[in-house]
């Protein structure tokens, strides 16, 4: 099942990428990133059958980081929304110096 898992992981990851590229809503963008993280997690888990449980440990770390990222990212989105009344990326170019 390893090959199938990895293939599935790749497909999900690609869908996530396409989502990131096509969507403009910041929140959905975040969710696409989460999807990509999940795809990677899947390949970790699949490969952990081959290499031992370290892959699963990594999945835990990835989840933690994802949680942190979601918390901070959503906070930022809320802050921006308060300021600009929008979460559309095309309207947000704060990063431009």
């Amino acid at each position, binding site marked *: *099942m*390893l*090959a*199938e*898992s*990895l*293939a*599935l992981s*790749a*497909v*999900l*990851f*690609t*869908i996530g*990428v*396409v*989502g990131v*590229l*096509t*969507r*403009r*809503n910041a*929140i*959905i963008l975040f*969710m*696409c990133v*989460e*999807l990509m993280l999940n795809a990677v*997690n*899947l390949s970790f*888990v699949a*490969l*952990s*059958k*081959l290499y*031992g*449980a*370290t892959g*699963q*440990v990594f999945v*835990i*770390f990835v*989840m*933690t*980081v*994802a*949680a942190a*990222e*979601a*918390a*901070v990212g959503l*906070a*930022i*989105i*809320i*802050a921006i*929304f*308060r300021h600009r009344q929008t*979460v*559309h990326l095309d309207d947000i170019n704060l990063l431009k110096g």
Partner: protein
Amino acid sequence: MDNTFHPLFYGFHFYLFGLIAIASAILFVTRKSPVAAALWLINVMFCLAVLYVMLDAQFIGAIQVLVYAGAIMVVFLFVVMLLNLGQPDDLADIRGTGPRLAAGAVGLAILAEVMVLARSRIQGEYAPAAAVELLVPAADAVGGVIAPVAGPLFREHLLAFELTSILLLAAIVGAVVIGKKQGPADAR
């Protein structure tokens, strides 16, 4: 557990949930409403949890449901509700045809590359003999399903574990600070 193992049954469910995951993912990226998108994503995660379990990572499967589907996605939904973004936007959320086609092409390219890489690296290094071993469950009876994960996590990776906890703490503090409503004096 050899006797309870039915390859056909196993394979069927593996493919089933895999296909559901893909379908849900596609639906997720194409929904205009953030709420619908979030719900489809949760569906993907449940499917993945099933697959984790089928790959003998029961613990991961459990926290996938608890942490990802249960906690993180709820936060997303919560924010969507909070900002009152439930309905599809007047402004088309999805980009025009050009970017969409381009994104599709890029996606296909990535897919192809990942496939090529996976094929050349992983299958190249492991002979079919090793693939048979794949089907042997990793968890042994004594340690249960958690011990193989907990062992390395709290031994070799203890420092990293503690660091992630600090990272979480920092993220919480950061989220609070950023999300705090600014007083009129602080407002730019």
